[in-house]
């Protein structure tokens, strides 16, 4: 159908619409997007609408199993886990998205400058990136967090300090590949301005791999945040991310399994959703 329409009337479907139709043919990826939208919606509104807060302690109802009043049960201080989980979703998603956004900006700057400058500058910038990327980032992040202290902002800073390198490489690789393509040269020959070439030709055509990298950066940032929280280097009480909640639930797993189940289940599902989307997108852009 798509093909028929496109062949009959070339202007009927824009490229983004075509991509969207192609994307919808990956049912899992489609479901993942719906899931993530739902997740974002819940994270935004449930903490506002809930009658409980994430920090109110009520020792008379501690460690209660899931019930109508407390959908996910309560923890060892009697805090409502449903509210805490969705508040944690805010933290975890915020860390993931913020780290990915900073990576994107830094990576585009570094990779873009390297690719467009070329020659010695390119060589030096990429060698530096090579040296940095050989360093095991998680260890450095932990060491950094120990010294500058735990907290939401420090996590994001530490994550993006080592995270931008992948993005820089992807951007540079893409730009180098398409810089000499026929349509860019043609646009130049027709007298298009530098900005028109950049925004109409270079950026739209390098967007695919950049988006794929982004969708894979977010889950890895969420995962690292969970890991840091597990080590006690994450956000500090009473704020809780999924990682902190899972690590608090671990010792109580045998008797109060719901305290571990909900946050860790959501970590897994979110990672799954982002990974599935990333995979389908990279399949789509490859074909």
């Amino acid at each position, binding site marked *: 159908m798509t093909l028929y329409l496109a062949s009959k009337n070339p202007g009927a479907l824009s490229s983004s619409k075509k991509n969207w139709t192609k994307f919808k043919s990956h049912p899992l990826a489609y479901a993942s997007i719906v899931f993530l939208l739902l997740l974002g919606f819940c994270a935004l509104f449930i903490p506002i609408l809930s009658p409980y807060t994430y920090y109110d302690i009520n020792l008379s109802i501690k460690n209660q199993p899931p019930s109508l009043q407390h959908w996910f049960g309560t923890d060892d201080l009697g805090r409502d886990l449903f509210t805490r989980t969705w508040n944690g979703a805010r933290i975890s998603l915020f860390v993931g998205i913020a780290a990915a956004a900073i990576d994107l900006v830094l990576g585009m700057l570094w990779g873009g400058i390297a690719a467009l400058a070329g020659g010695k500058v390119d060589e030096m910038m990429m060698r530096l990136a090579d040296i940095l990327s050989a360093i095991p980032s998680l*260890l450095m992040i932990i060491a950094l967090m120990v010294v500058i202290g735990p907290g939401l902002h420090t996590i994001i800073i530490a994550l993006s300090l080592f995270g931008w390198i992948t993005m820089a490489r992807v951007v540079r690789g893409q730009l180098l590949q398409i810089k000499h393509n026929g349509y860019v040269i043609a646009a130049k020959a027709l007298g298009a301005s530098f900005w028109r070439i950049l925004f109409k030709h270079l950026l739209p055509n390098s967007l695919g791999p950049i988006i794929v990298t982004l969708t894979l950066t977010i889950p890895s940032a969420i995962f690292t945040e969970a890991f840091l929280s597990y080590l006690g280097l994450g956000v500090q009480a009473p704020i809780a991310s999924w990682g902190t909640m899972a690590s608090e639930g671990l010792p109580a797993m045998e008797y109060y399994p719901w305290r571990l189940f909900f946050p860790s289940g959501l970590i897994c599902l979110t990672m799954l959703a982002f990974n599935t989307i990333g995979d389908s997108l990279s399949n789509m852009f490859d074909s």
Partner: protein
Amino acid sequence: MALLIIRKLFYACLSLVVVMTFTFLLMKMIPGDPFQQEQALPSEIHQALRSHYGLNDSFLKQYGRYLKQATTFNFGSSLVHKGQSVSQIIRTSFPNSALLGGEALALSIPLGLLFGIAAALKPKKAQGSLITCLAVLGISVPSFILATLLQYILGIKLGLFPIARWGSMMHSFLPALSLGFMPMAFIARLTRTKMIEELHQGYVTTARAKGIPEISIIAFHALRNILSPLFSFLGPLTASILTGSFIVEKIFSIPGLGYWFVSSVLNRDYPLIMGITVFYCAILLLTSLIADIACLFVNPRLTAAALQEREKS
């Protein structure tokens, strides 16, 4: 070839120097000094201690001394565990971690290859999709959740394996499985994609036309070609097993280096944190160097490509 190896060695050393410099700067960023305690020391004694340990020297002099001692792996003694030096702790605990990591590797590489190939042979059948599902699941479940689940189900509920401590092979099975699961999933996925690509190549069709059994086509023709992407994955693989070991060793109470690292982070035992960080980085850089070199040997085309690129630039 030799030139390429020397170049890679040089860059690995450079990365290590960056790591050392970074840890030094971090240590300098910590406010106060090691002699500030609850009871204030008389300032003469404080000054004497500072000059004895060289804390009054210039920044560059301290940095030079640090680099010299770090290369001989002298990180001083632990702040929390009195009388134990950092290198002593690493020497006694690393063998346990190395054994565990080795087991995880031994589990994940063959199984990952096997699953990947099995999935590639029948990509549309139930077997293929089941393995693909398992691989995606393996990538999405963090190791601390998997380790807890394994410990709970196989250890506590079913009582098949010991749930903690370190001793026999039985003790190491659950930790090795939880460490090796994610790498296994990665390898299976990578093998599947590469294998499907290879099976569509001309040489496979030729081999099939010649009547070579499918098993030898896969084992001798196609497998050779997917080995080099696998080798280049070996560096990140070791890294993931290593960082996974922090949590897995803590959950299963294994006296390995990861366990020490986590407890040093919780205790803010700075010399131990920095010592283990530099040690880990050195190990990881070494493994990825070895993997890179192995890659060059397995796939001579890479050498040619790298040399060509050099000539061009």
